């Protein structure tokens, strides 16, 4: 599966919810599919998109938060799985696109290329629902299930190590940061009405 096809398949859900992505190909591809003010692209601090998503999910329990992670990023912060599993916020969906590669820095293989199984690690960490979905239809169903289940879910999707031609995004990171914060504030206000 191409990651861009995976993103396309779930875009109609992503645009409705709070989304935090890692940097690199996935950020550029989601941005190109259509930026929304409720999308935050963490352009550094590899591994921490899921920690940010956990912080948001715990502080905004009435809203759904979708984190889009990658194998390289998650391997840098495996402790996040045990922390998420400890608090199990039902409004948090953690999607991991596993291309077995550090694609944006030259395509060097990660440990998932040599047998490390992120879905198994998530399960063993105590994440209540872990789904492997390796085609767009499956992924769409898994995302639908997760969003309706109100249980912390990790979805691991194997994708090809192919990225966009350009990683350019016409969005300075501070602009993204302030517009995202404002968007969350509006979501909070609307839910209180």
């Amino acid at each position, binding site marked *: 599966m191409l990651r861009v096809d995976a993103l396309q398949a779930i875009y109609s859900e992503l645009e409705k919810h709070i989304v*935090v992505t890692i940097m690199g190909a996935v950020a550029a591809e989601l941005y190109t599919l259509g930026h929304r003010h409720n999308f*935050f692209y*963490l*352009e*550094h*601090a590899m*591994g*921490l*998109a*899921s*920690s*940010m*998503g*956990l*912080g*948001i*999910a*715990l*502080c*905004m329990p009435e809203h759904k938060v979708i984190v889009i992670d990658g194998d390289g990023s998650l391997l840098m*912060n495996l*402790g*996040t799985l*045990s*922390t998420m599993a*400890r*608090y199990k916020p039902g409004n948090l969906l953690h999607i991991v696109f596993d291309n077995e590669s550090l694609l944006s820095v030259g395509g060097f293989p990660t440990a998932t290329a040599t047998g490390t199984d992120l879905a198994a690690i998530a399960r063993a960490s105590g994440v209540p629902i872990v789904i492997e979905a390796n085609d767009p239809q499956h992924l769409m169903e898994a995302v639908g299930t997760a969003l309706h289940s109100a249980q912390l879910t990790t979805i691991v999707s194997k994708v090809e190590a192919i990225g966009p031609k350009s990683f350019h995004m016409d969005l300075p*990171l*501070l602009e993204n*940061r302030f517009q*995202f*914060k404002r968007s*969350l*504030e509006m979501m*909070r206000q609307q839910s209180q009405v």
Partner: protein
Amino acid sequence: MPVSMTNSKLIYEALKACDVKIMSALPETWLVHLIRLADDDPDTILVRIAKEEEAIGISAGAHLAGVNSALLMQNHGFLAAINPIVSLALLYKIPLLMLISYRGHMGEKDSWQTQGGLVTEPVLRALNIPIWHLTNAADIHRRIKDAQTLAIAALHPVAVLLSRELMWED
């Protein structure tokens, strides 16, 4: 255990007065009472992390969600979190209220704490993070409030160093 319950309570009350709703922590001797106070408080979300790097992400998420947070960490935990402090908090202008137990400073008997004690303030200064020392109980309320005020106004991390004099009753 001679960790000061009285001063831990004062610190906790000061955080509550700052409307801190979510705290992250990784257990450390000087912080035990503070962590228990947070754990027993139904109005506080306590996130027990596996490594301090996560705490920077959690606080960043809380800030973007409009909620005040505080980080309870040992100075070695602060040292473990340098990259996300730089490439998340400083890069994205995220305020952080870091309460750091200042191990390895004057009076330290545990030799393994001493290198961290020596580098804590130089590293904070290198990162351009303002430092408040907490050594007197009378300063706790005002200094924690002022640290949070600056963090939010500057959209920048601040460090409150919890001293041995305050935290440890020998």
